[in-house]
């Protein structure tokens, strides 16, 4: 547990800290530019090999630990999720026409984004990422644009699935809000693999 040199160190590993650090920096740089001395000295090239092996073993150890330390039980996730408050995600206030003139009625931007996201997720073969409402949503007469980033299931025809998404978003907004939608702007930023098997998603750790 001491930082001092262990007297039982075999002579061939008794390299100075500085040399080990230099060899490590050399490896970190991808062995570029080639260092004649490190590569050709039998002892130093052996140590380079040992350090590379150490990196491999370290990477495997970290992978194994991350797998073993995945969320221990549903309670763990629940505890964190209940500590997460909805708070300041509500955004602007979007007016709605009240039944009585004496009342004022509004819906939050956050609620509308959720509405759009749910409508989009319900379209087969597409998953929604970001949802933005561009324009003055507080003015019922102003035209607004809905901007979405999405992931499309691999193998889907993108023009068809985005057309269905556009229709679903417009229908949901017409049904639940009074927003004037001028445009639904969709960016496909990812393709995801659709799982066809009925079993739960395969996880690498399922071998206990």
């Amino acid at each position, binding site marked *: 547990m001491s930082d001092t040199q262990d007297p039982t160190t075999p002579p061939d*590993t008794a390299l100075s800290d500085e040399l080990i650090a230099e060899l490590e920096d050399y490896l970190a740089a991808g062995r570029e530019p080639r260092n004649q001395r490190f590569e050709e000295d039998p002892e130093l090239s052996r140590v380079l090999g040992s350090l590379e092996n150490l990196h491999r073993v370290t990477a495997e150890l970290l992978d194994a630990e991350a*797998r073993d330390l995945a969320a221990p039980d549903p309670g763990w996730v629940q505890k964190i999720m209940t500590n997460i408050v909805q708070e300041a995600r509500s955004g602007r206030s979007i007016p709605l026409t009240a039944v009585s003139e004496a009342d004022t009625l509004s819906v939050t931007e956050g609620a509308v984004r959720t509405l759009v996201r749910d409508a989009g997720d319900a379209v087969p073969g597409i998953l929604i990422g970001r949802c933005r409402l561009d324009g003055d949503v507080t003015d019922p007469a102003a035209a607004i644009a809905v901007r979405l980033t999405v992931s499309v299931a691999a193998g889907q025809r993108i023009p068809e699935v985005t057309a269905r998404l556009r229709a679903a978003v417009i229908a949901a907004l017409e049904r639940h809000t009074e927003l004037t939608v001028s445009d639904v702007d969709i960016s496909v930023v*990812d393709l995801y693999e659709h799982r066809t098997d009925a079993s739960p998603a395969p996880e690498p750790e399922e071998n206990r």
Partner: protein
Amino acid sequence: MSDLDLRALPDGLLVDRATDGDRRAFEVLLLRYTGITRAYARRLTGSAADADDVVQETFITAWGSLDQLADPSAVKPWLMRITARKSFDRIRARRPERSLEDWEGQAPAGAGPEARAEVNSQLEAVARVLGELPELQRQSWALREIGEMSYREIAEELGVTEPTVRGALARARTALLRGLEQWR
């Protein structure tokens, strides 16, 4: 919508959804990165119990500051930085009374039973040596190897100089190499 599987989404889109207030997307990120952040916090704090508190705080903080994440696809390094900061907060808060006592009892994390015996032994050798390293070396090593930080970032995190970090890492590597060689 019951078969909606957000696990198919990459980090960036999950962050986008979570930033818009989607808790399910955040839960997927939480499940995706619980293991690595717990491993990181354990190495940094030397305590399984502290590490679990650190990771809970990390994700609660992350949820509250998602809109400050400039590049949503870089959520992993961002979570790792929060984990490191919370780990050091925790260590500072508990000084000086405790150190390694609840680390010692921890079994090294094993690979699955399918792992080849040889690899397993090497993993165990590395895990054992890591568990015995002095704090500065162990933390420098974790910040470098798990947190992927530069010498300068590690020095700032630990409040020491860059040459000190470089030396501590070299000594940690020497000890780890020796552990592997003894196993052979």
